[in-house]
């Protein structure tokens, strides 16, 4: 049973419970409109939701009841005994079906014709009904059977009398809920879940945020004291688990909002004369409730846009040689710490040239800039407020009404909107939503004598340029600093010069330079900082309006050492420094798209050095590179392990790095944390050398592809066999002989 159905069941059951209360009260106060309204609401809610879920039987029955209740609510009918009885029968009927849904996930077979007919029968005012019935009501207390009405309700006749006997509960009459009193064998959905006020969850989230801060401080304070290590580790783990649990409690599947789309699509296609097939994928992807709420409107807007301006009418599509039925695809999936929601259509696409012309005409960009801007940058213009509302654009480019609203809403929650479009092929709008608002992983960097937090999401790699090398490594084109990253020029932004334009800055050659290579919306640049500190999970605190206006900071946070740090916004820094989206990036993407799998064949490897010899680790599998003192390596028996973020990481040491460093607990070693299947393993190395593309090697004569080695920088280099790292004991017996790692061939 899916989440939506379960929620519907809980809601409906609660609604029916309320309805039962109200019905019994109604018998005493038939004129009470508040009671009637409450009953009407319960039935109406059920009817409304069943439409989405496709429970036709339930919908039909609820509809019949709603009609009757409508008349009662409007005062056209008085809530007489037979009516209340009828409504109670309706209640039981609804409950019966709900129960069937809960056990069998479908409504089950069964006719409600009798009950529906009764609802209709009751809508006729009493005075117009057969005299026998009135008589029967007058003789209410007598268990008279002779007052049988002549209509189709015949088999239900004894019911009205019974219901009006004070203190006696009405008996179910319909066949469907045959055993209402049967003890429930298992906990129902209503019993195993609890509804919690969102405000309380928010408060819990805030408190957990505070706890994370305190934990960070405790960890830093106790790092030196071995007596407290165990305690602080425990605190660390419990905090992490608690945080996860609280975050989980706030998660809801995106199906909650996707499920509203078929209806919108159906209505819109009918009114717009389109033929559209709606495909939905990844409905089970979960997102924080507040974020889900926040993307509801942008998503609806994007769907409307795709139908209105993206997908053409059937005859236009036929003329263009396309399937007359367009496809609208909604897809949600998780990628790292983000959830991506894609809305793609196979419609007309956006003509970039027209955007360029319009943008110049309307004075959004100069002719010179327009000529230099890439297609991707020009596409972004449809998000500019004012631009999008221009009628001409809407007609020619086929997209744009209110796109600025979509972007504003998504950016307000720290998300991003990306758009890709090909004329004649269609448009894809991608909403990139952070998993959570409150806590993000960040790298702490130092500049202008202060700490700043740099969100890990935008960070792709770090490069260290020692003072001696700065003069040659950083190249200048007039006043634009550049760095050659694997043969390509990377624009550099000096954080200190950006933050203190008038201050005195030391020359790059006089200090350590750390380049954080960032990718902000396709703007790739290197941010040069003075120093790096540890990565931390930071709790994002909002800034006051006056500081938000500076535009470079997305918030502030309290670090483990109780210092405050401003959170840098990589996108804003790129814009401020004038970094544009690189054309190279774009062609790179295009090639990847065209060539598809072909381009992926030459893998990138991390080149490492372990005790004098070189080895390669597939870059895709590398999660992090950690520099740690040898003392942090612990042993289970003879097997080295690392307590890494509260989890044990088996460390592979076939290179003999640990053995070589033995006896010097303060010696720094490097552990490359890799993904292997669904577990993580660490590889101990002395240095990380570079990242290089590896080529396949073929055996001479047989031309068989060799396994476990690759050609890196003209050297045959062995690839570390991650799968060969044995699992830690516990789950399965530790293999007696372990540590067969591919030998290193230089």
């Amino acid at each position, binding site marked *: 049973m899916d989440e939506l159905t379960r929620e519907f069941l809980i809601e409906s059951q609660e609604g029916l419970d309320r309805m039962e209360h109200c019905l019994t009260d109604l018998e005493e106060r038939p004129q009470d409109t508040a009671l009637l309204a409450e009953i009407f609401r319960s039935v109406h809610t059920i009817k409304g939701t069943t439409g989405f879920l496709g429970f036709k039987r339930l919908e039909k029955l609820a509809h019949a009841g709603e009609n009757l209740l409508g008349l009662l609510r409007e005062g056209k009918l008085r809530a007489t005994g037979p009516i209340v009885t009828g409504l109670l029968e309706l209640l039981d009927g609804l409950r019966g079906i709900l129960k069937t849904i809960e056990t069998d996930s479908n409504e089950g077979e069964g006719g409600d014709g009798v009950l529906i007919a009764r609802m209709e029968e009751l809508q006729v005012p009493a005075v117009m009904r057969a005299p026998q019935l009135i008589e029967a009501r007058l003789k209410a207390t007598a268990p008279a059977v002779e007052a049988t009405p002549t209509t189709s309700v015949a088999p239900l006749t004894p019911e009205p009398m019974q219901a009006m006997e004070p203190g006696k509960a009405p008996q179910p009459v319909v066949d469907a809920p045959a055993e209402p009193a049967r003890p429930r064998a298992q906990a129902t959905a209503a019993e195993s879940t609890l509804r919690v006020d969102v405000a309380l969850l928010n408060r819990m989230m*805030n408190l957990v*945020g*505070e706890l994370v801060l305190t934990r960070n401080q405790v960890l830093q304070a106790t790092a030196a004291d071995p007596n407290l290590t165990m305690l602080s580790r425990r605190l660390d783990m419990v905090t992490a688990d608690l945080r996860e649990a609280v975050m989980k409690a706030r998660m809801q599947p995106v199906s909650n909002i996707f499920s509203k789309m078929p209806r919108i699509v159906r209505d819109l296609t009918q009114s717009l004369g389109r033929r559209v097939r709606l495909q939905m994928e990844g409905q089970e992807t979960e997102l924080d409730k507040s974020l889900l709420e926040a993307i509801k409107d942008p998503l609806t807007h994007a769907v409307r846009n795709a139908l209105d301006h993206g997908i053409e009418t059937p005859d236009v599509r036929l003329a263009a040689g396309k399937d007359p039925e367009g496809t609208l695809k909604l897809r949600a999936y998780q990628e790292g710490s983000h959830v991506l929601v894609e809305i793609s259509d196979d419609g007309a696409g956006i003509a970039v040239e027209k955007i360029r012309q319009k943008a110049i005409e309307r004075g959004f960009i100069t002719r010179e800039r327009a000529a230099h801007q890439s297609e991707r940058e020009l596409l972004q213009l449809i998000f500019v407020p004012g631009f999008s509302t221009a009628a001409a654009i809407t007609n020619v480019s086929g997209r744009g009404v209110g796109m600025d609203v979509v972007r504003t809403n998504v950016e307000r929650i720290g998300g991003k909107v990306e758009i890709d479009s090909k004329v004649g092929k269609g448009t894809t709008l991608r909403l990139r939503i952070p998993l959570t608002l409150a806590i993000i992983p960040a790298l702490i960097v130092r500049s*202008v004598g*202060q700490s700043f937090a740099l969100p890990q999401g935008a960070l792709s790699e770090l490069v260290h340029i020692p003072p001696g090398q700065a003069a040659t490594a950083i190249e200048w084109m007039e006043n634009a600093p550049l760095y050659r990253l694997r043969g390509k020029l990377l624009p550099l932004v000096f954080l200190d010069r950006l*933050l*203190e334009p008038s201050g005195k800055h030391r020359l790059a050659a006089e200090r350590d330079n750390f380049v954080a290579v960032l990718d902000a919306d396709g703007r790739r640049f290197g941010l040069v900082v003075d120093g790096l500190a540890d990565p931390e999970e930071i709790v994002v*605190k*909002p*800034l*006051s*309006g*006056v*500081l938000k*206006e*500076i535009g*470079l*900071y997305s*918030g*502030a*946070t*309290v670090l483990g050492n*109780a*210092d*405050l*740090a*401003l959170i840098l916004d990589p996108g804003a820094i790129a814009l401020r420094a004038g970094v544009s989206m690189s054309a190279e990036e774009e062609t790179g993407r295009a090639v990847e798209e065209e060539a598809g799998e072909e381009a992926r064949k030459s893998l990138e490897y991390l080149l490492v050095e372990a005790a004098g010899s070189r080895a390669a680790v597939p870059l895709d599998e590398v999660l992090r590179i950690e520099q740690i003192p040898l003392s942090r390596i612990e042993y289970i028996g003879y097997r080295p392990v690392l307590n890494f973020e509260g989890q044990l990481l088996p460390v592979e040491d076939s290179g003999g790095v640990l053995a070589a460093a033995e006896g010097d607990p303060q010696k720094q070693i490097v552990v490359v944390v890799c993904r292997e299947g669904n577990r993580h393993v660490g590889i101990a190395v002395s240095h990380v050398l570079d990242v290089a593309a590896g080529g396949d090697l073929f055996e001479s004569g047989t031309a068989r592809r060799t396994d476990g080695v690759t050609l890196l920088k003209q050297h045959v280099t062995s690839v570390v066999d991650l799968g060969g790292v044995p699992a830690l004991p516990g789950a399965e017996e530790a293999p007696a002989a372990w540590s067969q790692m591919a030998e290193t061939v230089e």
Partner: protein
Amino acid sequence: MSASGVEVSQEAGLVEMCSVRVGRVLYGVPIAYILEIVGSARPQPVPLAPAFVGGLVHYRGDVLTTVSLRQLLGLPTRDGPQDILVLESSGGCFGLLVDSVGEVLTVSSAEHEANPSILDERNKRLFAGAYKLKGSLLVMLDPERMDPMRLGAALAA
């Protein structure tokens, strides 16, 4: 002194002011605006922020923007820890950075006089008159006008 005590004394024409010192001048802030006094704080500077921003401080789980009274008055900045008055204005909470916080003074509203006409425009906007104390003046500050958002808006205009 309880909150109801303020009411009573106001009826009698007496009001309570928290005195703060910046440079050699004594300033007063109505205690009703003060949420808390944080002593010896070192606010974190914010590069590129408007000059009046004294930096950020951690206050009860939130990050609070502070306004430097020295900067507002055009005095040179001072190194070393300063005291912070956490104030509540209609725009939210903010911190007011002062050299030191003194005692709470009970003053009579009869002793209050409006801003003198010779005061320059900048200070006219910040001050709300003064109370005549024995031997000195207690220059009144209007917390509403110190709100960073308002100052920021004034700066932009």
